[in-house]
């Protein structure tokens, strides 16, 4: 029986983390595509819709960066919870960037799927 070493598992985990990291910006732009969301909602949507588990201390600096890049803008909205929430919404540049990234992702994903098809069939 072939035993998988700890090193193999670690590199697989590292690879997965890198893969997920690369998708995070696109994932955030994607969850904002349908409308404005505040930070905690973005985190929840990422977890529930994309399997991306982002630490809370990561998403806020990233949102701040996307805002500085002009890809999102923010607005404060009073909530029923009794405190205002900062909502994020895509700008025109953010929508354009999301479209470009989604298109690149689709091309890449399609070509990788073709390449990996024999593996999926178990040949």
């Amino acid at each position: 029986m072939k035993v998988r070493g700890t090193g193999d598992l670690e590199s697989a985990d590292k690879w997965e983390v890198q893969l997920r990291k690369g998708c995070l910006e696109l994932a955030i732009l994607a969850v904002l595509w349908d409308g404005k969301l505040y930070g905690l909602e973005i985190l929840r949507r990422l977890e529930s819709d994309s399997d991306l588990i982002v630490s809370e201390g990561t998403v806020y600096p990233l949102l701040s960066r996307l805002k500085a890049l002009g890809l999102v803008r923010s607005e404060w909205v009073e909530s029923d919870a009794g405190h205002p929430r900062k909502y994020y919404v895509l700008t025109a540049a953010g929508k354009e960037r999301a479209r470009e990234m989604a298109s690149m992702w689709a091309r890449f994903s399609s070509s990788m799927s073709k390449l990996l098809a024999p593996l999926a069939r178990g040949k």
Partner: protein
Amino acid sequence: MTTMAGDAQQRIDAYLAKLRGQLRGFDDAEVRELVDELRSHIADKLALSEPTTGAANVAAVDAALAALGTAEELASQYVTDNLLARAEVSRSPLQILKSLFRWASLSIAGFCVLFGSLIGYLAGIVFLLCALLKPFHPHTAGLWIIPDGAVDVEISLRLGFGSIPAGREVLGWWIVPLGLVAGFGLVMLTSRCALWCARRYRRPSVLPRG
């Protein structure tokens, strides 16, 4: 609005005060907005937890703050991401270097990119200076090939200070247009490479599905 026990509120205030003190590079309005956003986030997190009082409330606050990371770590992410974003928007070599110095203080990858970028910018500046100084030092500025021993030669880009080099000048006045093109090209290429590396290697942490 939910009110919090004194201890719990103090913990939040202390955390946010520490964060506020370390958010360098942001103006006052930006700092206030970031802190208000985190205060709102913490309030939402506490509202999601079971209604508690006293010690349990303090524990819920501690858990909410722990999920954000330490104030130092969070401030560090904000500051670095902000510097990189400003560098990407401005594309100014000075702003890029400022971001890279910050990144270099945090990781080896950042240090390596800073080191490479300094070399790139320095080479670009030398080419530019050589081209710009040629009209003022026509006999001593330029690209020279200097014999170094019997077979070896040394290629030297000179800015024109000092005596006439003991070698042969190549390019002549062509150093002016070529130096300008090479200098600007190197500066632009270095900026692009540095920003690419920052985008590629300086990414936020994402956890694998457990």
